[in-house]
Structure formats: structure tokens, C-alpha cells
């Protein structure tokens, strides 16, 4: 028997495979396809204080080996989540992690405080990396000063494990991870999407209503992997890696580069069962390589 369990601080996960915020809705949308209870956890769609309609259609463009999106944090707000969605999903036997967003630090704090009372949500992922909103999101995550301010403020308000999700759209992600760790992050997750764009050459029009959007999928994997490695070397807290993971081999790469857990994102759109296949694939890998525990692989790339 191999051991797939991992820990983010004191919080134990049954395996390192989780699904990324914004690609897994609230879990329920996948319940026809898979047993959610098998997942290490799932990160729900980004929550904001108020209802948000998101950006106008079109919000998606396919690219070579990936896609651009500019959804813009569409959600019905934290109160609607607490009263309508949380009661339906809270009894799944897996960790439900809330991804939170705000236009101001006060928004982040209010959302955090409202989540404190939800027993079945053991951790918060602080999103300072959404590239598709005019205020907040990535604006906090591209400068050290604002990243530290929002992390410290949410740390104070948060009674749960605090994961900070970083944007790759900066020069030195290791330095950003270090200052966010210093501000109280229990864990760092990376990467959010890369800012990109696409144009229809025939019509000269942008393919997204917002012109720019976030690039995800296997096209970003090598850069995401390098960033995970950089951050792993820079911080002591556990790293949660993501960026174009399509299969178990990709997941193992992220673990070897320093991830304690991984998030499956865009792949969920193409194969809603891929997360379970990746759990099985990691288990097979451990058996094949005679590794007892998946934690033995974290950062175990041999140079």
C-alpha cells in the first residue's frame, strides 16, 4: 500500500489531487461524472462580497494547446453561496476550499469573516491573481506592498488555513512568495493564468470582449513548472502547484518540482473525470517506482 496522504500545515488531505478554482464550479456540476469524495479537495469558483455578472460574451478563445478566458469572477456573492450552495455541498467527504476575491481589502476581510463560520470549509485561497477584473484581483498580486497588505489583513481575519494564490504575471515570483509567506500565508498556490490575447486577423477584432484574458492549459506548463520550482526553493510553507496539468505524469512533474499538492484546472473542461485518473496514475507511479509515500516525491527532482 502506498501512502497518498499529504498535509497543508495541520490539514490532512487524502491525496494531493485537488481541482482549481474557476474550473470546477461548486463541485456539483461534476457529480454526474465522478465521485467527488475521492478528491483530495476542490477549490470552488471565486467568491466576492457582491453579486458579479462578469465580463460580456465572448469570454473564451481557444489557442494552440490551451485557452484564453475573461470570465471576470461571475458569481452570485458570498451570502448566496452561504445560504444556497454551501448547504448542498458541505457533506461531501473531501476538503472544500473557498477562493476569495475583492476590489478592496475591506471586501476580502468581510468575505473571510463570513466564511469563518462555515465548519466544512477548512481553508481559504486568497486570490490576488485574477487577471480579468478591473479592480482588485491581480492588481493586489503584482506589487509586493499591496500583496503583503491584503495577506496580513486576511491573515488577521481568517480562522482557517490561508493559502495565497499568486499570479505569474510578475518578474520575480520567488520574491513575491517570500513576502507573502512573511505576511502570514500557510501555503502558496501557483500559478493563476498568464495574461494573453488573441485577434481575428480577418476581422481585426479581438477574440475576447475584454481584449486580454488569462491563458491556461498545457501551453503554460513549462513556465508554471519552473515557477513552482523557484517558489519551492524560496519558501518553507507547502506549495500547491498548477498550470496545464493534463495527466498523472504532469502531476508528478509538479510534485517533483516542489508541490505538496496539485490543482487540476483547464483539463476538467475536456475530461471531467481527469482528476480521478490522475489520482490513480499517481498511485501507479508510486508502486512502479517503489516509493512509499507521495510526500517523498515533493521537490525530489534529481539534478
Amino acid at each position, binding site marked *: 500500500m502506498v501512502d497518498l496522504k499529504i498535509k497543508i500545515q495541520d490539514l490532512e488531505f487524502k491525496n494531493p489531487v485537488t481541482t482549481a478554482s474557476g474550473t470546477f464550479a461548486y463541485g456539483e456540476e461534476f457529480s454526474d461524472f465522478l465521485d467527488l469524495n475521492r478528491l483530495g479537495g476542490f477549490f470552488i469558483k471565486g467568491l466576492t462580497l457582491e453579486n458579479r455578472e462578469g465580463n460580456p460574451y465572448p*469570454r473564451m478563445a481557444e489557442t494552440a494547446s490551451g485557452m484564453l478566458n475573461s470570465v471576470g469572477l461571475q458569481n452570485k456573492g458570498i451570502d448566496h453561496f452561504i445560504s444556497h450552495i454551501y448547504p448542498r455541498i458541505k457533506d461531501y467527504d473531501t476538503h472544500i476550499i473557498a477562493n476569495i476575491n475583492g476590489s478592496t481589502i475591506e471586501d476580502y476581510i468581510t468575505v473571510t469573516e463570513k466564511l469563518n463560520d462555515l465548519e466544512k470549509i477548512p481553508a481559504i485561497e486568497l486570490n490576488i491573481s485574477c487577471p480579468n477584473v478591473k479592480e482588485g484581483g491581480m492588481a493586489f498580486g503584482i506589487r509586493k506592498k499591496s500583496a503583503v497588505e491584503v495577506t496580513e489583513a486576511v491573515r488577521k481575519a481568517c480562522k482557517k488555513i490561508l493559502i495565497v494564490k499568486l499570479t505569474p504575471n510578475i518578474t520575480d515570483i520567488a520574491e513575491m512568495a517570500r513576502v507573502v509567506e512573511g505576511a502570514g500565508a500557510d501555503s502558496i498556490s501557483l500559478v493563476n493564468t498568464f495574461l494573453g490575447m488573441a485577434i481575428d486577423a480577418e476581422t481585426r477584432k479581438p477574440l475576447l470582449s475584454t481584449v486580454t484574458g488569462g491563458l491556461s492549459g498545457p501551453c503554460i506548463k513549462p513556465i508554471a513548472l519552473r515557477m513552482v520550482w523557484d517558489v519551492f526553493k524560496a519558501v518553507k510553507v507547502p506549495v500547491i502547484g498548477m498550470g496545464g496539468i493534463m495527466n498523472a505524469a504532469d502531476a508528478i512533474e509538479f510534485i517533483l518540482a516542489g508541490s505538496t499538492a496539485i490543482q487540476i484546472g483547464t483539463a476538467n473542461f475536456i475530461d471531467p473525470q481527469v482528476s480521478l485518473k490522475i489520482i490513480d496514475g499517481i498511485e501507479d507511479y508510486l508502486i512502479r517506482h517503489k516509493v512509499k509515500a507521495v510526500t517523498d516525491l515533493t521537490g525530489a527532482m534529481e539534478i
Partner: protein
Amino acid sequence: MTRNFFFKNMKRIEDFTVIQHHWLNENTFLIELKSSGQLPVILPGNFAQIQINNTPGVFLRRPFSIYNADYKNNTLTFYIKIVGKGSRELGLLKPGDITSIIYPLGNTFSLPDKDKVLIVGGGFGIAPFLLLGKSFREHQKKTTFLIGGRSKQDIMLASTFKKYGDVLITTEDGSLGEKGLVTDHSVFNNNNFGYDMIYTCGPDPMMKAVANIARNKNIPCEASLENMMACGFGACLCCVVETTSGNKCVCTEGPVFNINDLAW
């Protein structure tokens, strides 16, 4: 109108085997694929997300209306025009090839209270209407299909639709049926219009024009939309349409909408 006169099925992801293509012209075909198990009930308006294999530049699945479902042979048929890499690859598949399909997705049309219905399909917009026509026949509705295209090459399945109702045709070049757009057809000019409900699917400008006619005549109308999507089951939130109650996903809250709910 009676809403949701069918029950809802569980979504599934399944490998299908290509049985055959039936080419209608050099860039249009019907493709029939067989499930390894028992088909669930497919509702008119339902669509499927088909995986495109071995095609550089194609990353996401492609959504297609389910044109026909054969419960005896457990096959699905799709009506496809080659417009890009994904549809071209589906045309190149060989009998016996396997591809993954997520289905049945989306909602369905309402059953009208009264008897006479007009179904307006532009180009490939007729794809969801064979199943609707079959269902209306079972419910003893009197169905008229109004099919529009640029020229007669675009009107290829009229004889199939004739089995389920009257067929009216318009072509922009006048090569078949009345000349003009579907909304120019004389059926709309008749003072004694006589239809109790209109259903439409096709390019957005056409559906909006049909919706306007329905509003002017004060007749209920439903439109089946075809927005771009990544997942097809409500996770990516990419395919939204603006409605009177905010942005809604075409994949899960549609593709069929009452025109009064759309911000058109």
C-alpha cells in the same frame, strides 16, 4: 406552454464508435456513432461535446446539437458542416474509429398548449429540430418547418423533415423555395398567420429577427442558442448570454431560452 415535459437525464462521458458518414455535399455530412451501452433518453434541443482527436490546434471539445437518436441501435447522429479544424477532423474519421462524447447536455423545448407550431431553422440551425418534430408528432401537434439557406445547396434535409410536417423553404439566391431570408417568407405576411408557437435556431441575427416577428404577433417563441463554450456542463462560465435576470450559461440554463427572458 408546459415547461419541461421531459425528465432530466444524468450527464455522462462515453466512448462512441463511428458507424458511418452520410455525405450531403463536399463539406456537409451526417455522422452516426454508436454507444457501447444503452442510450439515455435524448431530449429535443440536447447537445453533445465531441472530443476531436489528433488535430493540432484543437484543444477543446466541440459542441453539436444531437440531430437524431436511434434507441434500437444505440446510435447518435450529428449534422455537421465543415467550418474549421474540428469539424474537418470529424469528417475524416473512419468507421470503427473511437471518440469520446459528453452527453446529453442542455435543456429542452417547451411543449405548446395549442396545436399549430412553426419551426424556423437557418442553415445548420435545423439540427435540433428533427427530434423536436418527432416529439411533436407523438404529441399530435401540427408542425411546419421553415428552412432557410443561402442557396439550394444549403437545404439538404427537407425530405427528411417532410415526414414530420409541412416544409417551407427560402433561399437568398432564390434557387429553391421563396427568394429572400426566412423572415421574408410569405407565411409571416398572412393575416391569418395561425401558428400558436414559434421555435427557432440559427445565426443570431436571424433568430433576433424571428423573435421580433413573434413579439409583434404576440406569439410565444423559443430560441436555441449556439454560444462558444469550453466545458458544456456549467463549469467554465464562458458561454453566457445576457438575460433579463443576469448572465446565464447557454450550456446548462439553455441552449433553449424563451425570447422574453433574453436581453435581445
